[in-house]
Structures are given as structure tokens and as C-alpha cells.
């Protein structure tokens, strides 16, 4: 065993580690943090210095409602996406390659079509006079059209549709990394399939669920095209409201304040998640 090789294993890569982060930090620092901070500063300077924008937001029930609604939608969408994505990712991880590549193809095909176009397609499919309702009525399954659009159902269908690939793909990676022997061993030791699922498969796939879930939840928070078209006005998301403030009313102070609050609350949730779930590798084992 050569000396270099030994060093390769033994030395913790402190300098190498930080060096790798440099390009990302420069990119985010220069082109995200600086411009966004410059804009967010307006929340305390625009139109006059002070906290009036925050007072206006926090003192008004509407913003609280929209805020609550935004998190509710993100939460519902994340849960449904995880539940739907897990079995698919599971199959995708273990099915024969030929079948898997077809399924991968379908997933990528669904993502490839323009988001607005897909959302419009859902609109026409889900309407009272839409394809699904008329099909079900013609088949005699229902006699009144189901309310599938302009409500939370429509938002959930449209958003889960968009989010599924973001959950499935990371999950497949995690599931494929699990050694099937672990589960065979469990079966040999007499574990029932349910016990094996609960005690082994699910815990081992948690990193994938957490990664995909984080991506879906956070994306959903900042989303509005789909909710705006498939939801009712009572399903308004914070991002749509902020877009109105910034793009239509030109009230950048108020819009920045709302964005800042969203950012702080999300970051607090992220910190909370780190606390609760913990990070195995975090120094000091938080």
C-alpha cells in the first residue's frame, strides 16, 4: 500500500470540499443574493423608510389566509405526490430494463410538453363540460358533473401531475442503491412482507423521499400558474399575489415584504426539519 493511497483515505478533505463549493457560492452570491437583497431592502424603504409594508401584511386577514392556503396546497400536493410516486419508483427500480426504459420515456415525455400547454389541457379535460365528466356521464357512472376544477381538487390534480417526476426520479436512485440481499435476509429470518416494508424498505428509502419531498414542497410554495388556472380564486397562492403586487400594481415594497416573509418561514421550516430528522453526517450530529 503506497503512502499516497493511504493519505487519500485518511485525510479529511477540508480544502477540497470548500473548493468544490466555490463556483456555486460565487454564482448564487453574485447573481442571487446580491440582487435579491437589493430588492428585498425595498420592503423597508419603499415608498418611505419603515416597517409599514410588514405592518400592512401582518395586519390584514387576507394575507394570512393566502399564506395559510399556500402552505396547505404545498402540503397536500407533497403528501399525494409521495403516495403516488413511491409504488411507481419501487417498480421502476426493480423491473426489467426494457420495461423500465419505456416507463422512463413516459415520465420524460410528460415533463417535456410545455407547462402552460399541459395545464390548459387539464383545464379542458377537467371542466364540467370537459372530456372526463362527459365520459363518466355517458358511461352512466354519474348523472351530475363532478366539480373537478376551480377548487382544491383541480389544483391537486394539476400540480401532482407536474411534481410526480421530481419525486419519482430521486426515489428510484435511492431504491436502486438498496441491496436486495438485506430484504432477502429479512424474509429468511421470517419477517412478513409488511414488516420488511416497514422496518427495512421504507427507512432505507427515506433519504429519497426527503429529497423529493423537499423539492416538491418548496416548488409548490412558489408556484402559481397551475393553481391560478385550475383553482378557484379562494385557492390563490402567495406567489400569484406577489406577482400582482409587483407586476400589476408596481408596489415593490409590499411584494418584497411578502416574499421576505415567505422566505423566512420556509427557511425556518427547513431548519426545523434538520432538527427533527437530524443529519447523520452533520458535524456534531445535530
Amino acid at each position, binding site marked *: 500500500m503506497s503512502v499516497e493511497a493511504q493519505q487519500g483515505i485518511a485525510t479529511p478533505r477540508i480544502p477540497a470540499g470548500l473548493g468544490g463549493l466555490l463556483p456555486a457560492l460565487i454564482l448564487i452570491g453574485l447573481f442571487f443574493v446580491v440582487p435579491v437583497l437589493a430588492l428585498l431592502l425595498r420592503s423597508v424603504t419603499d415608498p418611505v423608510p419603515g416597517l409599514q409594508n410588514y405592518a400592512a401584511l401582518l395586519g390584514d386577514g387576507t394575507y394570512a389566509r393566502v399564506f395559510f392556503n399556500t402552505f396547505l396546497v404545498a402540503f397536500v400536493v407533497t403528501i399525494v405526490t409521495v403516495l403516488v410516486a413511491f409504488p411507481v419508483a419501487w417498480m421502476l427500480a426493480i423491473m426489467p430494463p426494457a420495461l423500465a426504459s419505456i416507463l422512463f420515456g413516459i415520465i420524460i415525455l410528460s415533463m417535456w410538453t410545455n407547462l402552460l400547454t399541459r395545464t390548459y389541457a387539464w383545464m379542458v379535460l377537467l371542466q364540467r363540460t370537459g372530456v372526463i365528466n362527459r365520459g363518466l356521464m355517458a358511461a352512466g357512472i354519474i348523472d351530475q358533473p363532478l366539480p373537478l376544477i376551480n377548487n382544491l381538487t383541480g389544483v391537486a390534480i394539476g400540480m401532482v401531475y407536474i411534481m410526480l417526476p421530481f419525486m419519482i426520479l430521486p426515489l428510484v436512485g435511492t431504491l436502486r442503491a438498496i441491496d436486495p440481499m438485506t430484504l432477502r435476509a429479512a424474509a429468511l429470518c421470517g419477517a412478513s412482507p409488511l414488516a420488511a416494508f416497514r422496518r427495512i424498505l421504507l427507512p432505507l428509502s427515506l433519504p429519497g423521499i426527503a429529497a423529493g419531498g423537499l423539492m416538491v414542497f418548496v416548488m409548490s410554495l412558489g408556484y402559481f400558474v397551475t393553481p391560478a388556472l385550475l383553482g378557484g*380564486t379562494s385557492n390563490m397562492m402567495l406567489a400569484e399575489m406577489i406577482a400582482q403586487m409587483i407586476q400589476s400594481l408596481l408596489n415593490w415594497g409590499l411584494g418584497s415584504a411578502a416574499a421576505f416573509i415567505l422566505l423566512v418561514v420556509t427557511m425556518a421550516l427547513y431548519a426545523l426539519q434538520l432538527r427533527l430528522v437530524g443529519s447523520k453526517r452533520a458535524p456534531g450530529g445535530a
Partner: protein
Amino acid sequence: MKLIFAGILAGLMATTAAKADEMVFTSWGGTTQEAQTKSWAEPFTASSGIKVLQDGPTDYGKLKAMVDAKNVTWDVVDVEMDFAIKAAKDGLLEPIDFAAVPKADLDPRFSNENAVGSFYYSFVLAWNKGSVTGEPASWADMFDTKKFPGKRTFYKWSAPGVIEIALLADGVPADKLYPLDLDRAFKKLDTIKSDIVWWGGGAESQQLIASGEAAFGQLWNGRVFALEKDGADVGVSWNQNLTAADVLVVPKGAKNKDGAMKFLAAATSPTGQAKFAEASGYAPINTKAKAEMPADVVKGLPDAHVDGQINLDMNYWAEHRDEIATRWYAWQAK
């Protein structure tokens, strides 16, 4: 890093060059901008030699950002009129040089010192004949769910129109609309809230009516015109039609102001207005344009329905934009 600096350099070189024989026109995209290109930009380039570059879509945030940064890349922009009045007050617009833009024939309702009309339109009551029995005749009928059951569709955003319709339906006389009684309007809107489907863009309103998803609604007249032209079975009532307009503005600090003013003169000329109106179904803001248009097109214009026509008060809206928007979205989100 090298890449970034090279980029900054390239960018600097690209944006500092503003040519006198070039200008940028920005509008909303789609067929409207296509018609504007064909009716205004192309003839203008042919006669003046000034090349018109098409940009877009119009975004008010982007407009404000470029004026704030004193790096304005748009020369003429198509915007809604109530926005234009507010933007002028915020100092975002150049005054119109009426020495270069002939004013005499422009409809005074749709021009002021910082904007000239682009086109105007009316909100009318339209319905799908397959989904409605009888003929709704007034805005009051749109609030009568007993006589006319079914979903009705209204414009989603906080903009001139829906508030006025609610007040008219509640019996407010046309000349007493302003100042708007918001409490009364929202109370009236509450009575049909669960029957409302909102449309956010013109195409959506057409889709809703054509498919029967909404039985009737408040539509732009140009949209009803297009539906009829394509053979959709729709009815329309011009009773109490409400006029509003898009206007053309020049952002403060535009690089080719002279070119912009010349373009405005061409766009608002009788010929330019007549051609655009024919292509789009919207109405001309030049009073001489009608003489150059086919008779059957003139018949479909809001001008043919001045009886009972109501002009939405853009100055009032510009003044109270924020306040109404706050109430509007609060009511919608409830």
C-alpha cells in the same frame, strides 16, 4: 469568472449601441401584436426607413425596472389606459410630442398628454345560445340566477369593469357610478359568487363561452366578434356596454424618442387604425378611420352602440388602483 467578465463586456457593447434608424415596439404577443406589426410597423418602416423591432410581452414590472435603471430598451409600449395614467404620475413616461403626432382626429376619451390610444373596446354581455334559454338583456340579468341559471364568467383581475357591472345591476344609474361604492358592489357580487367562473385572458373567455362551461359572461366585444366569425353559436347584448382602451406610451428615457413619436403618428393615423381594427375586431381611436373601413365591420364596432354606452372612468381607476385591488383580492380570496 472569465466567462462572466466576457459576458459583461459583450453585454455592454450590445446595449450601448442605440441606432437612430431602429426602434423597439412592445405589445402583448399573439395575434394582437401580429396585427399591429402588419398594420403599423411594416408600412411605417416602408415609408420612414426606420426598422421596428418587435419585443414583448408587455410587463409593467419590466417597464418600471428599465426606467429605474435608466437603461430603457423599449421605445413604444402597448399598455392598459388606467396603468398609463398611474405610470405617468409615477414619472415613468415621456410626454407625447403632439407636434409630431397629429391630435385633431384622435378620440379625446383615449388620449392624454402621456399616451395616445392604441385601440378601444367594450365589455359586452355574451352568451352561449345552446346553454341559455331566453335572452339576457342587461347586466341585472347576469345577477338573476333564478331567471338565468348556470355559471357566469367575469374578468378575474382588479381592473375597470366588474365593479361597475355589479353596481349597474344593483340599480345605480350610469351617471352616478363614480365614486365607486365598493361595499355595495361586493355585496351584490356576493349574491352570485359561487356561480362565477373567472377568466384571466381573452382566449380563456372565448373558450369558456364556446364550450358552454359558462353559460354567459362579460366579454370584450372583439372576442365575441371572433367567436361569431368562427361560427360559434353566441348571442350578444350591447345594452350598457362599457368602454375601455389600450394606449401607446413612450417610457421615460427611451433611446429613440424621435422614432417613437413618428411611429405613434403612423399607428394613430386613419389608415393605420382602420387596418388594425379590421384585422383585430377592436375599435379605432381615430375618428376618421371608419371612412376607410368596410361597412359590415363598422357595424360591429362599439361606435354603432353609443346608445346606453358607458365610459369606464380611467382617471378614477388610476387614482384608486391600489385601494380597489386590496379590497378586490381580499374579497376574491374569501
